[in-house]
């Protein structure tokens, strides 16, 4: 009897704690693809605890939310297709063709087309989601990787890792209209929300190139230097830029740091220590938090964007690769 009363009071107390601890914005749900486990880990954004592991296809890497936010698209690289995960019941309900070895992709702003990088075939494949069919293929450089679509959907930027270029593709003509030589092994291409620039990370070159989208010229090459870390370990991959273009975050791979960059002056403000081999970055919906996947330490780090502090690391599956926040 007295035990039951205590338990009830504990429950009330816990609920009260939860109530006061929960931020005003609705908590998000975080999805992380685990390359080696062939799973997606679901993390609750309020408690920052892993709540579920979903088995998916072989070697899941790039992940994206559908336009209606009801599904998650997953590049199952070694299964050579894209899977559609229904977020209502966390089950794979469909697969889409993708061409061989899909690694990373972009969703056009209408939500109807996926642009997929086929790393083994030097192609970008365009997939019609409703029809579940390949529309066309565009030849690009060796080992296409990064995919960034402009906010208006008119241009797609694809990077090729061995050709060391950012290819600008006109999405209406479906052809390459410009090639910009960047530093070695370019990985991600990320547009600013105003569509004026796209930023390209170069993993081996150790830099981020800021490209003027109209002139298609590099306006700034951002270099990084972390005291006590060998320059070879500084390998930029993931990029996240705030909507107001005040701050940019760059994941530096085996340097185990995320660089915080003033996105107006391009000055590196500080380096945040996160998990090992930090890879992909994603904001939560109101951009108060940034999540990082750490491929070697098998966790994600949570960065508070306001204070620029790492507030938590959450264990996920093996070799976490992609991360997405769902409102």
């Amino acid at each position, binding site marked *: 009897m007295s035990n039951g009363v205590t338990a009830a009071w504990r429950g009330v107390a816990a609920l009260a704690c939860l109530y006061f601890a929960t931020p005003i914005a609705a908590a998000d749900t975080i999805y992380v693809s685990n390359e080696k486990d062939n799973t997606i880990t679901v993390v609750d954004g309020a408690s920052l605890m892993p709540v579920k592991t979903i088995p998916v296809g072989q070697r899941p890497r790039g992940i994206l939310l559908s336009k209606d936010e009801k599904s998650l698209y997953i590049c199952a690289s070694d299964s050579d297709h894209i899977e559609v995960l229904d977020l209502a019941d966390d089950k794979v309900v469909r697969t889409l063709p993708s061409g061989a070895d899909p690694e990373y992709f972009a969703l056009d702003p209408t939500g109807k087309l996926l642009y997929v990088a086929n*790393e*083994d075939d*030097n192609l970008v494949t365009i997939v019609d989601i409703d029809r579940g069919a390949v529309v066309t293929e565009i*030849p690009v*450089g*060796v*080992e296409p990787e990064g995919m960034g679509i402009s906010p208006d959907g008119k241009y797609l930027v694809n990077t*090729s*890792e*061995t*050709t*060391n*270029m950012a*290819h600008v593709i006109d999405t209406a003509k479906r052809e*390459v209209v410009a*090639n910009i*030589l960047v*530093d*070695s*092994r370019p990985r991600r291409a990320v547009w600013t929300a105003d569509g004026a620039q796209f930023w390209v990370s170069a*993993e*081996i*070159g*150790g830099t981020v190139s800021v490209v003027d989208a109209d002139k298609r010229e590099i306006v700034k090459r951002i270099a990084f230097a972390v005291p006590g870390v*060998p320059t*070879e370990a500084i*390998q930029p991959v993931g990029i996240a830029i705030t909507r107001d273009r005040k701050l940019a975050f760059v994941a530096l791979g*085996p340097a185990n740091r995320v660089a915080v960059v003033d996105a107006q002056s391009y000055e590196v403000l500080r380096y945040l220590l996160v998990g090992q081999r930090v890879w992909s970055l994603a904001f939560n919906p109101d951009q108060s938090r940034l999540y990082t996947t750490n491929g070697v330490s098998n966790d994600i780090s949570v960065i508070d964007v306001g204070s620029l502090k790492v507030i938590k690391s959450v264990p996920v599956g093996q070799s976490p690769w992609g991360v997405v926040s769902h409102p």
Partner: protein
Amino acid sequence: MPRCALLMTILIIVATLVATRAYADAQTVQIGWLSQAVKRTLPLSYLDQPPEDEGVQGARLGIADNNTTGHFTGQSFELVERVTPEDGDIATAFRDLAAKGTRLVVTDLAAPDLLAVAGLSEAATATIFNTGASDDRLRGEDCRANILHLLPSWAMLADALIQYLVTKRWPALLLVVGHGEGDREFAGDIRHAAQKFQAHIVKEKPWTFVPGARRTDTGHFAIQAEVARFTQGISYDVLVVADEEDEFGDDLSYRTFDPRPVAGTQSLVPSAWARPHEQWGATQLQDRFLHQAKRWMTDRDYAAWMAVRAIGEAATRSKSTDPAAISAFLRSDRFELAAYKGARLSFRSWDGQLRQPILLADARSLVSVSPQPGFLHQFSELDTLGIDKPETKCRMG
């Protein structure tokens, strides 16, 4: 059927026209390939027979990769292959390439042949890319200003291995040396590395046993007994073997008197490239190579791929197809090559050696990659492997 044939013909003509048009205004970089068909001794293991097209397949893949990039930059790359027979005249083959205007030549030749070619008057304005010889002297007293080395030297391989063994705190070594010249050189490099990184060689023993009829039934008894006897009564952590020709090294593991791991030219092997390597996007290169050559990439294939890719990278960055401009760019501090080993590679100014991480792998798994963390260098940690600037014997003049 005739209609089909006609269609095919038209298609081929159209394809040819398109190809010709695409390259009509492209500037071409001609890259020579020079190697000699050498009858190699069969390795001890029946499993890995030496491929006949070793090296050149890597160069061909490099050309394909360069041309994909060249498609966007208006540059094209062409490989002119010259494989001389075993008793053929290499100098004539080189002169033939030079007469065609080829100034960038990738070679897979033994050290004496390489030096002979580099000394030809036709080679004075050429750049030769060595992808076949690991000899230290080519980076030391016999270095040449017109040679760049893509394969790591024996010294780099020895340093990479010893760094790892020291990191593991396995510093006491039993060094077993075969009768070949390369074996003695590698053994010398192991001694040097042991001194440099504070390992110690407990004992050094020459391997002289010839097992004879290994394939006879019960042949394994003789080998087992011999290796146990050979290693008995010695206190050591790791057996390091120098057997470049693959004559006995694979017969040592699991047969020593005490349970000790084997490393060196067999078992745990330091090398430029390894079959189990799949980090830093290496899977893509392995896949592309398998698809093209229908076999696994060896370190010589990899060295040849790197040579051609280095030329391509220099041509793209310098926006030039002029061999002199490409060579100058390759040696400048602006040159960097990404080659699936997680580091930017460049050529050492003092001996023309490509600085690169070294893989440590056995047949089925990648064990480690050197330089090991903690081995520091004022300029580049990659220069903790091999002969550094202050100790080089290379005088290019």
